[in-house]
């Protein structure tokens, strides 16, 4: 009996280590696949379209976004994403990139807020301005270090709210963000999940969004990433550029401070 138990135990151990080896190879294969794709990242098409949209005169006021203050002064795009989210005195709000673009579309171009945030995410056959603008602005921060201040009281408040949301358990699965992103070596199917409570993982993860998702054929922004995480958690739908989405972005962005921003990237 004891010998039988031992043998079964050994067999189980062997099975576990084989599964581990297979998983590692699969992860390496995905990395190789990403590297091969990185050379011709279609996100560049979004970046080019976004640059055009940034300079194009649009909206009722027939104005471009070139005077938009993204946090480093009006019209400064270079490195702007590394300081976002940030408190803006003109809107008296903490804003991330997407919400700031909405604000500029309203104040500079004369769109209504509803028009500006109507189509946040593209889909096959549906090109939207927002994800192209996001691709362009973020591409101008590639290779730079994240440097979110989070010193203004409203920025600190957003960080704390974001932290609460990150650890808040709820929904039919009783999940929090931390359930999947609070420990090492977690994964969904073969997809490794970053441990966002660890600085190195947080930096790498934050610095890799937005990304061209090969499986969807679209560039996906941080707002989309959070929206889809909420969906996977079976949480109520996360409203585009809502205070909650900005607070969570603030929490993730500040935790990524010091990390090199390297996006738009490419993901499977």
């Amino acid at each position, binding site marked *: 009996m004891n010998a039988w138990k031992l043998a079964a135990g050994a067999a189980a151990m062997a099975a576990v280590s084989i599964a581990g080896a297979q998983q590692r190879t699969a992860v390496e294969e995905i990395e190789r696949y990403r590297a091969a794709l990185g*050379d011709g*990242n*279609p996100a*560049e*098409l979004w970046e080019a*379209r976004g640059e055009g949209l940034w300079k194009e005169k649009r909206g009722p006021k027939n104005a471009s976004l070139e005077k938009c203050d993204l946090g480093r002064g009006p019209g400064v795009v270079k490195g702007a994403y590394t300081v976002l989210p940030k408190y803006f005195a003109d809107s008296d709000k903490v804003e991330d990139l997407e919400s700031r673009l909405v604000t500029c579309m309203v104040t500079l171009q004369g769109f209504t807020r509803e028009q500006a945030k109507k189509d946040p995410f593209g889909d096959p*056959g549906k090109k939207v301005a927002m994800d192209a603008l996001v691709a362009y602005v973020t591409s101008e921060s590639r290779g730079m270090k994240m440097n979110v201040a989070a010193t203004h009281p409203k920025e600190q408040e957003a960080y704390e709210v974001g932290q609460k949301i990150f650890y808040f358990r709820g929904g039919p699965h009783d999940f929090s963000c931390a359930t999947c992103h609070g420990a090492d070596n977690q994964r969904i199917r073969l997809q490794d999940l970053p441990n966002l409570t660890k600085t190195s993982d947080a930096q790498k993860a934050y610095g890799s969004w937005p990304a061209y998702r*090969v499986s969807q054929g679209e560039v996906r922004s941080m707002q989309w990433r959070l929206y889809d995480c909420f969906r996977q958690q079976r949480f109520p739908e996360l409203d585009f550029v809502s205070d909650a989405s900005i607070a969570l972005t603030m929490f993730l962005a500040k935790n990524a401070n010091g990390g090199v921003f390297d996006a738009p990237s490419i993901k499977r």
Partner: protein
Amino acid sequence: MADPMKIRAAMAGDKVEVKVLMSHEMETGQRKDSKGATIPAWFIQNVTATHNGKTVLSAEWGPAVSKNPFLSFRFAGGKPGDKVVITWTDNKGDKRTDEATVA
């Protein structure tokens, strides 16, 4: 009107290496939309590349090529400053031509 291509052309040894990103839906004709109706096939059918007016690549593509395709190829006989022109035509007759200068 289709979006512009992204074309890079640079010397790689004694050959010119060209990398092209095209913006296209590349629908296979096999997929169905949310209502169950077939999404009509829509894909790039012909691609040609010319170097100083001379064709260096001519390809017939089908629906198996991915969305937003990336094409990379090399040809001999080019030098920096030369012009490379890429043209694609899709099965709806839509067309796009862009050019790049060899770096």
